[in-house]
């Protein structure tokens, strides 16, 4: 029998039809929608005079533009309010499950899907958001789509997609203390560049990946798009099953046993061929931070910003433009740089383990005076756990400001913006120019590094901060 990859198995079983010399008609099991990329899709359905084909396969939550304070009150920003209200109207009209602001399971779409057990191995999942790749952590094919495709899924439960090439990234070995899954993925992106996986769907494998918790795996898969990949996935295993067992939408009783038996078959055959393979050793990876304006511009926290040696043409001018934006010089050390803001949150690192990690680190310490520290849980459920576990108290005593769930300062669509020229060390996923507000200078790092920076007030290595 032909040896196939996990990606092949899921993809091929969801192809309704292959268009000759064209894309596949690809069936979608689960569709997540939010307030920003769905309104035009619904509007176009109306213009065409058609409805939603299968409302039970779509789940909605407002997350991108919502305020992170006073969520029980009317949204002040008129345009944000309109988008959220439009989402409510559309969900009510077509009978789509909505986890609205203030409800028990409100949160960032990529946090609540797994939390509720909606995300399951073997599924095809899409959402009008590039970080949909997060759900790949469960052994699902999950990727971001544009609004035209949101419309296609609503109208037909299918999209037209060409099958991506296959890449496997294997990380073996054991990472040292203070090295998190965020460091693993920032390292990988720095190695293969922000466009290095464009055209590919990535499978992450190896002992260092297998040893990660589900939440840590989600962080890795979340950032697949930051190296250009369509998505990333990890074969489901006992860690996956353990996480899903008992979740609200997970199968129950006999159905559970049947599901697990099927999920166990979802892995790449030995000898299956990938179009591209990379191998890394976890022991080589140290706490990472970005210094530029794309996520591929990352270095060890202890490292120096690369010089322009060997660069030419638009490559060099783009690099210098990026450093000029950041206010950095080629060749200088990143450690010791002053920081103004820290942000803990987003679909990359806004889960309970991330908040625990920050709280355990800052417990009994105070943030530096020059730092404004925001912590934004990924969901109401995460917020609730953080309260119940006493983490909120620890964080507030350390000078962090806890806000309500949403995408928040990750993309600054709401009021949570980093002021122009200020430096933020952030657990989010993008350091693009202006991503966290016009003129904002973002450095991406792990929750642990962010915690250390909050205390030290400057870029530092989390392994060194409390040594003295």
């Amino acid at each position, binding site marked *: 029998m032909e040896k196939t990859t996990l990606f092949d198995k899921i993809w091929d079983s969801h192809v309704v039809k292959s268009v000759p010399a064209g894309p596949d008609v690809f069936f979608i099991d689960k569709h997540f929608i939010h307030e920003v990329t769905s309104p035009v899709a619904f509007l*176009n359905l109306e213009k*065409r005079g058609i409805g939603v084909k299968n409302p039970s396969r779509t789940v909605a939550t407002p997350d991108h533009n919502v305020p992170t304070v006073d969520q029980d009150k009317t949204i002040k*920003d008129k345009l944000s309010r309109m988008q959220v209200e439009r989402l409510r109207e559309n969900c009510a009209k077509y009978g789509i499950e909505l986890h609205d602001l203030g409800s028990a399971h409100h949160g960032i779409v990529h946090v609540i899907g797994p939390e509720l057990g909606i995300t399951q191995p073997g599924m095809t999942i899409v959402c009008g958001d590039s970080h949909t790749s997060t759900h790949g952590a469960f052994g699902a094919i999950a990727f971001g789509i544009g609004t035209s495709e949101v419309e296609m899924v609503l109208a037909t439960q299918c999209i037209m997609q060409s099958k991506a090439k296959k890449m496997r990234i294997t990380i073996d070995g054991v990472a040292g203390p203070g090295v998190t899954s965020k460091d693993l993925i920032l390292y990988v992106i720095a190695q293969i560049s*922000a466009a290095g996986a464009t055209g590919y769907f990535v499978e992450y494998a190896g002992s260092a990946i297998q040893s990660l918790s589900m939440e840590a795996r989600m962080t890795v898969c979340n950032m697949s798009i930051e190296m250009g990949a369509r998505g990333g996935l990890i074969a489901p295993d006992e860690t996956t099953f353990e996480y899903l067992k008992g979740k609200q939408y997970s199968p129950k009783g006999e159905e559970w046993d049947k599901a697990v038996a099927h999920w166990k078959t979802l892995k790449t055959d030995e000898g299956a061929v990938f179009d591209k393979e990379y191998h890394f050793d976890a022991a080589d990876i140290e706490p990472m931070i970005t210094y530029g304006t794309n996520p591929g511009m990352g270095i060890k926290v202890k490292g120096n910003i690369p010089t322009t040696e060997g660069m030419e043409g638009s490559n060099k001018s783009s690099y210098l433009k990026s450093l000029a934006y950041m206010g950095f010089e080629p060749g200088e050390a990143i450690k010791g740089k002053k920081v103004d803001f820290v942000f803990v949150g987003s679909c990359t690192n806004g889960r309970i383990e991330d908040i625990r990690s920050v709280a355990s680190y800052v417990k009994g310490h105070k943030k530096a005076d020059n730092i404004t520290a925001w912590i934004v849980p990924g969901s109401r459920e995460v917020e609730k756990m953080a309260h119940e576990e006493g983490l909120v108290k620890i964080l507030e005593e350390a000078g962090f400001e806890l806000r309500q769930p949403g995408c928040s300062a990750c993309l600054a*669509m709401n009021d949570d913006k980093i002021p122009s020229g200020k430096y933020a060390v952030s657990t989010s996923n993008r350091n693009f120019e202006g991503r966290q507000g016009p003129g904002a200078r973002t450095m991406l790092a792990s929750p642990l590094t962010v915690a250390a920076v909050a205390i030290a007030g400057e870029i530092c290595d989390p392994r060194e901060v409390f040594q003295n």
Partner: protein
Amino acid sequence: MAYDKFTVLTSTAVPLPTDNVDTDQIIPARFLKATEREGFGDNLFRDWRYDVEGNPKKDFVLNDPTYSGKILVSGRNFGSGSSREHAVWALYDYGFRCVVSSFFADIFKNNCLNIGVLPVTVSPEFADKLLDTITANPETTITVDIPNQKITLDSTGESESFDINEYKKDNMQNGFDDIDYLLNMSDEIDAFAADK
């Protein structure tokens, strides 16, 4: 929705010789708060185009009257980042019908084809040639020919062929979109979905 038909386009072009132009630059997130598709062109490249007070930045190419046209020629890895289709709506609304680069991000490329903006991938050498020529001679035109899958620098006649699959090629030339196609096969989809 179905869009304009696109067969052959001859136009002057705007050079943007920057690599890794991400969709947050094309249209910043704070301008995504609309419930309709029109009007995004005003904020195309907002933070490169205007300062914080909203005054045009003189050194940005869209503010330079020397350059205009329906074709944007950019550096490598154009359209990376967010899946926001609003980035393509902004380019379209501003007046661009074609973007040329030596390398496009995946989702962006799909989004372009879905609303009828043609992404043309050329070799890095040809991209540099186009950028250098149109920068030096703004009146130079470029011809993009979908039926023959050919892009030509009209002043010198130099050309390259480009890839586009037959299905999308047909869609672009006839102004069809994927939903038209999918709606026509709803019985097949229903039969498939019955097992899922």
